[in-house]
């Protein structure tokens, strides 16, 4: 769309082919001294997709984003945006939009001037700039705020202006570096929806970085879980939640109860998790996905909402059970959360809808907990580092 000769030309194939990924990272590495912040990443982001990089701080997600933006040169590997190799291209020629956590709005320019900046840099005619700025401000519902300076705007408004500035020049790719981190919860939630709406309207491809798993689940088409410079698992929220490939991922997305022990194969499908006197059945599907062999150190992961307190009902073959005592009962509005203590001292939690809690359980009361075998996820236990 831009005719500025200083921007690399988009190949015709790139702009018309829906199959070509918007972003391809191959073997991307970044070393700082002897430390590998990004340890060899391969990633393909589909056109129009909202992909989130999720992980704890220091996991390499921000470094990856900054390399895509061009602020940092990778140690090795390549970055391809829209079919063009951009690995060595400086940031001001990459044609990607970026939204920063602290907004980075130019304080000496009005909101409208901020939004106009990328168009001015591309030497667009004044009339075109005026129109596109107005459109962009309308898009983020701040059409009447163009004359304000950033210091006169609230945090949420500043972030929306930053968004408008990042999309006004129709970038190939939209990058967001924890843009909502500085805002309070309610504002964050409403802006999450804003961002989704804007990106859908524009058909933009978004690469989003956050450490907040709820945010990732709400906004993304796919999520890449980062840990120590590598992508642990890539998939939709549902994929990651229901079928985590590792203990780290299971812990990263959603809450988990983790039962560690040894895995034993049982002839046919599935097997057993054993631990000092306890034994739980592992379903065939979970066992197959885990690709663990007999005798491996493993962990059985069960989501809190999948466990329930058994009120003396009969235990069937398709169920696993645990004995525990009540530690805390937490009322969470629509749900009730029970913190339970196992004999070993380990704590687990259970989430049940409020209606189910007519028991009036107290601290110290013994309970029996059960869950369906198919709800148990099996992953390897890397052991204590």
């Amino acid at each position, binding site marked *: 769309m831009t005719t500025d000769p200083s921007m690399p030309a988009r190949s015709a194939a790139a702009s018309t082919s829906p199959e070509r990924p918007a972003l391809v990272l191959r073997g991307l590495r970044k070393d*700082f001294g002897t430390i590998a912040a990004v340890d060899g990443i391969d990633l393909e982001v589909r056109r129009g997709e909202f992909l989130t990089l999720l992980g*704890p*701080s220091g*996991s390499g997600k921000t470094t990856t984003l900054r390399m895509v933006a061009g602020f940092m040169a990778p140690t090795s590997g390549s970055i391809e945006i829209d079919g063009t190799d951009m690995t060595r291209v400086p940031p001001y020629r990459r044609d990607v939009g970026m939204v920063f956590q602290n907004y980075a709005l130019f304080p000496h320019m009005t909101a409208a001037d901020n939004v106009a900046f990328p168009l001015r840099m591309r030497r667009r005619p004044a009339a075109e700039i005026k129109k596109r700025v107005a459109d962009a401000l309308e898009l983020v519902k701040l059409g009447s705020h163009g004359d304000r300076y950033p210091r006169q705007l609230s945090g949420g408004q500043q972030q929306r202006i930053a968004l408008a500035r990042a999309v006004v020049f129709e970038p190939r790719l939209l990058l967001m570096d924890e843009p909502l981190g500085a805002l309070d919860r309610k504002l964050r939630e409403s802006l999450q929806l804003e961002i989704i709406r804007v990106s859908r309207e524009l058909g933009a491809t978004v690469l989003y970085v956050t450490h907040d798993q709820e945010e990732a689940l709400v906004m993304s088409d796919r999520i890449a879980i980062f840990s*120590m410079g590598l992508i642990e698992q890539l998939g939709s929220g549902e994929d990651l939640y229901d079928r985590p490939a590792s203990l780290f991922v299971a812990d990263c997305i959603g809450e*988990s109860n983790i*039962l560690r022990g040894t895995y034993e194969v049982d002839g046919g499908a599935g097997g057993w998790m054993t631990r000092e006197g306890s034994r739980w059945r592992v379903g065939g599907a979970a066992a197959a996905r885990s690709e663990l062999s007999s005798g491996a150190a493993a962990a059985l992961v069960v989501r809190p909402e999948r466990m329930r307190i058994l009120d003396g009902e009969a235990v069937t073959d398709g169920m696993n059970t645990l004995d525990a005592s009540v530690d805390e009962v937490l009322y969470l509005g629509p749900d009730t959360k029970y913190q339970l203590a196992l004999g070993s001292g380990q704590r687990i939690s259970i989430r049940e809808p409020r209606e189910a809690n007519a028991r009036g359980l107290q601290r110290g009361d013994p309970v029996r907990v059960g869950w369906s075998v198919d709800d148990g996820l099996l992953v390897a*236990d*890397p052991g204590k580092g």
Partner: protein
Amino acid sequence: MATADEARSRTWPSLVSARPRVNRWSALALPAVVFLIAVFLVPLLAMALRSVTDPPGAGLSNYQQFFEQQAYVRVLTNTFWVALLATLTCLVVGYPFAYLMTIVPGRVAGLLLIAVLLPFWSSLLVRTFAWQVLLRDTGVINRFLLDSGFISEPLTLIRTTSGVILGMSHILLPFMVLPMYAVMRRIDPEYSRAAANLGASPLSAFLRIFIPLSLPGVLAGCLLVFVLALGFYITPALLGGLKDQMISQLIVQQITQRLDWGFGSAMSVLLVAITLTFLFVASRAVRLRDLFGSTTEE
């Protein structure tokens, strides 16, 4: 909730930025560096050289000459003495003032700051001249005291050590107040409140908590004032008597009147050496304090 996998919770070491060893911006500092070397360093080095080559083959004889003469050494000790007195005066006057600036409301503090900064930026010559006018036998102070009958004879205020101290302290006061204020305003008032809550009287809290916490600023201020006072010229020249001569006056005298460049240069080198020594020693002292968690900036 079960604990996360221990292996994964190993803390990720902080990322050391491996920037290129020399980047593009570095060249910008070059013009100023070249300029300062040519206009500032070279003259100083030339002077240091002259201190040992003028008269030819002098070696350390100029320095020797200085320490051998009682009169010269006395000038040096007088310089230290005057500088010390000026520092103490500034400390005594400046500490309460800096403290006051921290407890008054913001607007008043701003005004007090202006009161400190305005003279700070005013010409040293003008201010010394003003003191001359004030302290002369026919000056403002004597006139006032005579006219109102407190005294019958004019007091000798000028051409005395006290006159010099008065003038120097006036000029150096901002250098004492500003560093102290900078440190004091960083002292969290919560400490005093905590002390009060734990049973300390206001005076006790002030002595045991505020004063120790303000010491880095006091040190910085005293050091700065002392070092600057050592090199003073205009003020002792206008306000002091013959016996109050400071080393800078001696240096000027040797160069302009006696045209003894070698000797004058040697004394200059001496003055710079003393100044740098004090700064070095004090910078060590202040750094040690930093280790104990002070509130200085540098």
